[in-house]
């Protein structure tokens, strides 16, 4: 069996592929580093020279505007050179294999790859293929993981709630197809959240989801009772086409976050969403734009968290011989 490629022999982070298996101090280090960058993003000159001269390739095999943009901004604020590649529209359609693409880009002296891919595990394949010293950040792979999203969610929770150890957190929605949810569950449990709930109809839950250490609720009102944090998930419209759900209307009625349902949570509960939101499907505008929503701060923190991950990975590179 192949080893986990994201930590080196000393346990230092070489790639960020998944939250699963990361020690709590690594997560805390990322969050603490991000805190120091939040100030940078608020300054007039929003740049630090930490990654000057480094080449970062934004390698998106699946379309994305938001995530790619936040990575690009984060890299530029660290003074790196950023190249954006939307591979879904170029070499893959010409039949070039994934690893051939990687070889070609490595030959252009890339220092870091930010990878989004529709297949679970694709960033692992890439990380294992690269020579040491080139880093991979998983920007979302299939249904598997979206570690920087989970980290920015953790940052946001810590910002508003200070501590993880007394929290009750509910994740609501399409867990079956959600890479965000999988990473959130791991991050929450590693950081010591004692009660993680998932709320969804049975058709949107992975098999044996309780083995991930979560409590399963099918009734949203029950699932939200007395929680401190509500993590909403995006429901893609295509889920209505199979036999997973009958309609967006029925879904909204039973699993959409409305002020009524949110009233079951603690009065100071915060509401989060990874975006883009489907208003009126998984979340009511009154909640999304309401006082308990921290959805926009999430986006702001996301840049600092991605800067933190990039700088930590770059700092872990072995020094070049002629440096």
């Amino acid at each position: 069996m192949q080893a986990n490629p994201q930590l080196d022999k000393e346990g230092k982070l070489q790639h960020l592929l998944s939250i699963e298996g990361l020690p709590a101090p690594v997560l805390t280090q990322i969050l603490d580093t991000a805190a120091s960058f939040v100030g940078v993003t608020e300054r007039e000159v929003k740049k630090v020279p930490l990654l000057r001269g480094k080449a970062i390739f934004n390698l998106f095999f699946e379309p994305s505007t938001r995530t790619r943009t936040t990575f690009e901004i984060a890299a530029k604020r660290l003074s790196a050179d950023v190249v954006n590649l939307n591979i879904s529209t170029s070499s893959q359609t010409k039949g070039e294999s994934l690893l051939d693409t990687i070889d070609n880009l490595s030959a252009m002296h890339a220092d870091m790859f930010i990878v989004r891919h529709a297949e679970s595990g694709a960033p692992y394949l890439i990380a294992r293929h690269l020579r040491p010293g080139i880093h991979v950040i998983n920007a979302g792979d299939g249904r598997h993981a979206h570690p920087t999203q989970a980290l920015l969610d953790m940052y946001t929770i810590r910002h508003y709630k200070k501590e993880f150890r007394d929290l009750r957190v509910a994740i609501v929605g399409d867990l079956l197809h959600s890479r965000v949810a999988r990473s959130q569950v791991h991050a929450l449990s590693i950081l010591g959240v004692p009660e993680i709930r998932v709320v969804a109809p049975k058709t949107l839950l992975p098999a044996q989801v309780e083995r991930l250490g979560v409590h399963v609720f099918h009734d949203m009102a029950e699932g939200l009772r007395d929680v401190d944090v509500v993590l909403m998930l995006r429901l893609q419209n295509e889920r209505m086409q199979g036999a997973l759900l009958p309609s967006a209307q029925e879904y909204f009625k039973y699993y959409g976050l409305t002020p009524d349902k949110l009233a079951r949570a603690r009065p100071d509960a915060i509401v989060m969403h990874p975006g883009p939101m489907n208003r009126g499907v998984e979340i009511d505008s009154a909640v999304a734009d309401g006082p308990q929503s921290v959805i926009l701060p999430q986006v702001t923190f996301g840049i600092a968290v991605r800067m933190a991950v990039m700088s930590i990975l770059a700092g872990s590179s072995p020094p070049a011989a002629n440096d």
Partner: protein
Amino acid sequence: MKIHIKNGRLVDPQNGVDAVRDLYVAAGKIAGVGSRPGGFTPNRVIDATGLVVCPGLVDLAARLREPGFEYKATLESEMRAAVAGGVTSLACPPDTDPPLDEPGLVEMLKYKAKILNQAHVYPVGALTQGLKGERLTEMAELRDAGCIAYSHADEPLTDTLVLMRALQYAATFGFSVWLRPEDAFLVRRGVAHDGEVAARLGLAGIPAVAETVALARILQLARETGARVHLCRVSSAEGVDMVRGAKERGLPVSCDVSINHVYLSEMDIGFFDSNAHLIPPLRTARDRDALREGLRSGTIDALCSDHTPVDDDAKQIPFGESEAGATGLELLLPLALKWAEECGVSLQQALAKVTHAPARIMGIDAGHLSPGATADVCVFDPDAWWRVEPGALLSQGKNTPFAGLEMRGQVRFTLVGGHIVFEA
């Protein structure tokens, strides 16, 4: 060519033999066991002291990839792998390109295999034309061309009426139908067992009910039509239970399991190791234990390699896009021995699962060392350890979840039809 294999531990499960006995081979046949036939002067004496002498192995599923997939493997490479693994008879599934649905294709395959003069190749014919699940093949013609059974390989046969008609037609002639129980709708785009690992890794799942729902359908139709049905590659504990129940009720079904599923579980996928992408999917440790026990108790009749050479390009891609399958011909013997050791099964019982039991399912006279039988013999060192180095395998398929593992039991000689076709 007369060969005298002396001082070996002769294990012949069909004849209930496990003793130090000499074996005499002449004119391609077993000329004598234990006592030297009159006037026997060997051209070659093999000293098998400390070695096991057993019938050549019989494999129920080895993909040779011809015709159509020669870039993955060729008849030549896979036949060399077979005899290196002590396999002297093998059944090849019909999922070639084109599928084995016409007598001409089957004759060509038999002919090409024959001139290579290595293991005996027994084609399994396609049950429906093009494996499309719509029209029956000319089963009787295919039998005359050399097919020993009919199957749908891993292609879906969703139309239940077509399946029933195929079973009825096969039953008319007493043909055997080999089916791998799997409901195509429940598989959909699944690539891994729908359990804890798939949930964690975000891989599309194939639930165990995909097997049991299909099994229920097959068992009911087998009873209804009276067809001889062999169930291929069971993978779940519930599946094993259903087969046991069917056998207890007197249904004449047989059943096999692959070497992969007797050792591995979903956990072996690790961090998306595409070598563990198999059909059917590796299931839980509990399922694996039930398969091992089913094989011991006899619910599962035979162990097979499910040899599927895949080229590197089809494995060096993300797990969900990778091609399923693992190479296996060279691992069948050591893994059968390992199972025996771990489950407290005698060597004789273990070898039965890879010799006369599969031969009986195939309906061929092989897998035993009775005087007069074709001299297909395997001589192996039961105590030799070796490490699975994919590059050193003779099969063109280097894809195996057992890479790097230590195996015990190494083939020294393989005889097919009285000729030494492999020697190490």
